[in-house]
C-alpha cells in the first residue's frame, strides 16, 4: 500500500481566490457576526499586515481595499467532494479527510509510469484547478497526512515508500501533527514527550491506560502496526458544481477564467468515471434569484475542458447578460459511458468524422442553429423539394433526371418577359427543354411547369420555367454555376 495525502490548509481562501484572475487582499472571516475575526488571510492581505485571529474591522483598517468573505463550511465540504471526484481519475481509492484527501496509489503506479510522474500529474492538476495542496507520501494514510501537514508548516520531511523505513522517517515529527485532542497533547508535553519516537517508545499498557485505547490504536495505525482500511468516496451519479465569484463579473470575458477551472475539475471527474457528457447546463447567477441558463449539447460524448470551453465561449459571445454575474453553476444530469478515442499517427475515417462533428459544433455554437446544415436528395420531382436538410437523410443515392443547376434559388424569381420571351440581363435564348414537371396535386401544392435551360448573351446559363397555366409567366429557379 502506498498512500498520497493531499492537504489543503487554506481551502476556504483558495476556493474564493481561484475564481479571480488577479490577486487582491482577501480574508475569510468567521465567528460572531458582530465581531468577526480573520480566519484566513491571503498573501496580499498579509503583506498589508493582516494576521489570522485579528478582528475583521482591524484588518480593514490596515488594508483599505480588503475584501472579507464569510466562511462557508458546507461549500468547503462540497469542494472537497468535488476534488475527490476529480482525483478519482488517478485511483479508485480516494477518501475525504477533514482538510484534504488521501489516495491509495500503489495499484495506479504502473498506469501513470511511476510515482514521480503520478505526483507531478497530481501537482499540475491541482494547480490547474486553482488550488494549492501539499503532498505527503507514506505506506500508511495517517503517516501520509502527517507528512503533508508537516510540509504545510515548513517542517522538512522525506517521503517514504517502504514500510521498514517508516519508523525512522516518523521519529522526529512533532506530535501536534497528529490531530490528537489538545488535552492529550498537553499531558504528553508535560511528560516531555513531543516527538513521535518518544510516544512510540512508551510502554503500550501504560499509554493505553493514560491516554485511552483510541490514542494507542491511532499510534499503531500511524506506524503501520495495525491495519487502517478506508472507505472509498463514492461520488454522486450526476455532476453538479458551483463556483462563487469573489466580485461581480461584468460581461462574458470575465467569466471564462473561472469557467475554465470548473470545466477542468469536471474533466477530472469524468475521467475518473470513464464518463462523458452530451448535455451540460451552465447557469450564470446574477443574484436576486435571476440567472441566465446556457444549454450546451454536443454531437458526441465529450469531456475535454478545452473543447467545451471553446464551445461555451462562442455561445456566451452571443448572449447579452442582464446583470453582472456573481456565480457559476455547472450541471450535468446524465453521465454517459465514454470510450476514449485512440490517438493515431495518421488520422483515419473515424477521426475525420469526429473532426467534422467538432467543426459543425463550433460553427453552430457561434452562428446559431439552422445556419449550418447538410444537403441530401429527397424523393420528390418538385425542384424545391428535391433536396432537404439531413439528419433525415434519404437513402436515395443517385439522381437520374435531366440537367440540374448547381444553384437553386430559395424561391423562384419572376422574370421580366418581353414580347420576344423572357429576359435576364439580355434576352434569354432557350438552350434545352422543355422538361415538364407536373406533380404534387395530391398535397395541395401542385406544380405544373415547363423547365428550360436558357442562356443570356453573356453566356450565363439559367434554369427557368414557365407556368403551364399562365404561359406568359416566366420564373428563374436555378443557376448553372
Amino acid at each position, binding site marked *: 500500500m502506498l498512500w498520497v495525502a493531499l492537504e489543503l490548509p487554506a481551502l476556504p481562501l483558495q476556493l474564493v481566490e481561484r475564481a479571480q484572475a488577479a490577486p487582491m487582499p482577501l480574508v475569510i472571516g468567521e465567528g460572531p457576526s458582530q465581531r468577526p475575526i480573520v480566519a484566513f488571510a491571503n498573501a496580499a492581505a498579509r503583506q498589508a499586515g493582516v494576521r489570522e485571529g485579528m478582528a475583521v474591522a482591524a484588518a480593514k483598517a490596515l488594508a483599505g481595499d480588503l475584501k472579507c468573505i464569510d466562511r462557508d463550511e458546507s461549500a468547503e465540504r462540497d469542494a472537497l467532494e468535488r476534488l475527490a471526484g476529480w482525483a478519482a481519475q488517478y485511483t479508485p481509492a480516494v477518501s475525504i479527510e477533514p482538510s484534504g484527501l488521501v489516495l491509495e496509489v500503489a495499484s495506479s503506479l504502473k498506469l501513470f509510469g511511476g510515482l514521480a510522474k503520478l505526483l507531478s500529474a497530481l501537482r499540475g492538476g491541482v494547480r490547474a484547478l486553482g488550488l494549492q495542496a501539499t503532498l505527503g507520501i507514506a505506506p500508511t494514510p495517517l503517516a501520509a497526512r502527517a507528512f503533508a501537514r508537516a510540509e504545510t508548516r515548513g517542517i522538512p520531511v522525506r517521503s517514504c515508500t517502504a514500510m521498514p523505513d517508516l519508523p525512522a522517517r516518523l521519529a522526529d515529527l512533532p506530535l501536534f501533527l497528529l490531530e490528537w485532542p489538545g488535552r492529550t497533547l498537553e499531558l504528553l508535553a508535560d511528560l516531555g514527550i513531543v516527538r513521535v519516537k518518544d510516544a512510540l517508545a512508551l510502554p503500550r499498557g501504560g499509554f493505553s491506560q493514560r491516554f485511552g485505547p483510541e490514542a494507542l490504536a491511532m499510534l499503531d495505525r500511524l506506524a503501520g502496526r495495525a491495519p487502517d482500511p478506508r472507505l472509498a468516496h463514492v461520488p454522486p451519479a450526476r455532476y453538479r458544481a458551483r463556483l462563487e465569484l469573489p466580485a461581480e463579473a461584468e460581461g462574458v470575458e470575465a467569466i471564462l477564467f473561472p469557467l475554465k477551472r470548473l470545466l477542468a475539475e469536471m474533466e477530472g471527474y469524468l475521467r475518473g468515471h470513464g464518463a462523458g457528457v452530451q448535455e451540460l447546463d451552465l447557469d450564470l447567477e446574477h443574484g436576486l434569484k435571476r440567472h441566465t441558463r446556457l444549454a450546451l449539447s454536443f454531437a458526441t460524448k465529450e469531456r475535454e475542458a478545452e473543447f467545451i470551453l471553446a464551445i461555451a465561449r462562442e455561445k456566451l459571445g452571443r448572449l447579452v447578460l442582464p446583470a453582472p454575474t456573481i456565480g457559476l453553476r455547472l450541471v450535468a444530469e446524465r453521465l454517459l459511458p465514454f470510450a476514449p478515442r485512440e490517438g493515431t499517427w495518421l488520422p483515419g*475515417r473515424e477521426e*475525420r468524422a469526429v*473532426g*467534422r462533428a467538432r*467543426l*459543425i459544433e*463550433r*460553427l453552430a455554437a*457561434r*452562428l446559431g442553429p439552422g*445556419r*449550418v*446544415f*447538410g*444537403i*441530401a*436528395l*429527397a424523393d420528390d420531382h418538385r425542384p424545391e423539394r*428535391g*433536396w*432537404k436538410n439531413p439528419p433525415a*437523410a434519404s437513402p436515395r*443515392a*443517385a*439522381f437520374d*433526371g435531366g*440537367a*440540374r*443547376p*448547381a*444553384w*437553386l*434559388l430559395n424561391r423562384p424569381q419572376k422574370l421580366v418577359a418581353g414580347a*420576344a*420571351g423572357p429576359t435576364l*440581363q439580355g*434576352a434569354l*435564348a432557350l*438552350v*434545352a*427543354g*422543355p422538361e*415538364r414537371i407536373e406533380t404534387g396535386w395530391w398535397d395541395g401544392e401542385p406544380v405544373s411547369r*415547363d423547365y*428550360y*435551360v436558357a*442562356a443570356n*448573351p*453573356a*453566356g*450565363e*446559363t439559367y434554369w427557368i420555367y*414557365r407556368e*403551364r*397555366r399562365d*404561359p406568359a409567366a416566366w420564373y428563374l429557379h*436555378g*443557376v*448553372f*454555376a
Partner: protein
Amino acid sequence: MVDPARFPGVWRAGEMDRAMPAGIPSGHARLDMELPGGGWPRSSLVEILHDGAGLGEVSLLFGALKTVAEEGRAVAWINPPHLPYAPALASAGVPLDACLVVRPAAAEDALWSADQALRSGACGAVLFWLPAKTDYAWLRRLQMAAEAGRTLAVLFRPTSASVHATPAHLRVLVTHRAGLLHVALPKRRGPPLAHPIAIRIAGHPVRHGGGCSSFAGGTGPVPIPRAPLAVRDIARHASRVSA
C-alpha cells in the same frame, strides 16, 4: 554554388514549379496540364474570378470535390449566393453526406467560419464567398489556415478584384465564349497562362446551333430570337492582370 531552383518552392521564371506536391485532379486533362502540381493545390488558397453567375464556375470544381469527398473529407460551402442543389451535386458524383453548407448572418461570421473550416483539417475543400471589401490581411490569414489544415480553399470573387494583390498562389479567371468555359491563369507558380483554355463541363447544358427545337407550352411555340453573343476580350483582360 548550389542551384537555387533545387530548393522546394523556388522556380525559374518561365518554368512551372515542379516541386509542388501532387494536386487534386480537376477532371479536365487540359487544365491539369496547366495547373502546377497537375491539379488543384491540396493546401492553398485559390481565387476564381468571374463576372455574373451561370458560367459553370462552380461546376468546374466538381471533379476535385468528388475526389476529396471520396477521401473521407468534408466539402464546406460557406456563404454561397444560393443553395447548392443536391441533384446537381449527386449527378456530378459528389457525395452529398460530405457537404456542409454554412450561411452566416454577418460578414465577419463568414470570414470566421471560413477560417475555422480551413484550420480544422476536417474539410478537404472549402468554397467561400466573402464580402467585397475583404482585405489582404484576411486573405493572407485564410491562406495560412489552408496550409495549416491542408485544405483546398476556393474563394469566388468578381473580376474587378484582379487589380488587387492577392496572397493566393493560384488565380483563375473564368469567362464564357461560344458555349464553352474559358479558363485563364493570370497567377500561378510559373508563367501566367494568358491564353485561355476552353473547357466543356459535363452536365453543363451547352447551347447548340439554333437554340431550342420545340416549345411545348400552353399556347404553342413562342419564338425567342437569339441575341448575338457578347464575347469578352479575355486576352486583353488577362494581360492587364499579369502586368
